[in-house]
């Protein structure tokens, strides 16, 4: 029984993000992202982001773009809304021209919307719709739908 408990504790400890190699971290995070389990991927992505933060090479900088975007989605998924809003704001300040930027702006608006912070949500959705480089129709449609809901309530 003691041996079994020890083995189980060891397996859990070995799977914790800080103890995994970078390749394994990427694999685990990708598996969660493929299943749209964004919230479960957050600890793995955060650890990857921590390891890549100090690198100036172009590949890690590009990888960091995705690694910073999905934790915001994960936090939205698990209703950690103030955290989601600040993670997505950090992503947008670092990567304003990213392909993920319109979705990040929409989700940041959603993070305010589901906290009941109507004024912040309206400002964020309007910012999204005013973006001349807006390339995602679905994000724009969703923002309009939310603005309409907010004007009714």
């Amino acid at each position, binding site marked *: 029984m003691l041996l079994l408990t020890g083995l189980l504790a060891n397996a859990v400890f070995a799977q914790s993000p800080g103890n995994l190699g970078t390749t394994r971290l990427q694999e685990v995070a990708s598996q969660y992202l493929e299943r749209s389990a964004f919230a479960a991927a957050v600890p793995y992505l955060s650890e990857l982001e921590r390891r890549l933060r100090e690198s100036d090479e172009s590949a890690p900088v590009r990888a960091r773009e995705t690694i910073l975007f999905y934790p915001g989605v994960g936090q939205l*998924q*698990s*209703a950690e809304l103030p955290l989601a809003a600040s993670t997505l704001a950090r992503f947008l300040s670092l990567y304003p021209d990213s392909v993920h930027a319109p979705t990040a702006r929409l*989700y940041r608006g*959603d993070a305010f919307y589901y906290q*009941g912070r109507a004024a912040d949500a309206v400002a964020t959705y309007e910012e999204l719709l005013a973006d001349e480089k807006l390339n995602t129709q679905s994000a724009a449609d969703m923002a309009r739908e939310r603005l309409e809901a907010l004007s009714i*309530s």
Partner: protein
Amino acid sequence: MKACLFAVGFMGVCSLGVAQSSEPLQVRWGTEGRALMAVMGIDAQDRLRLAASDGSSGKALVPMSDLKDL
């Protein structure tokens, strides 16, 4: 008689506790929202007050129209 009153009172308190505790449910809302949450009530604007059941600080105010699954 005292024991009987005590038993009835005890059962009453227990049933009230069970009725008031909200069971965690897998909830889906909006574009990405998907979590095990408890329904804490409904606010004046008919939005569900949800709180995460995993010990995290997750909570959300979700309009009924945004609920996809409860």
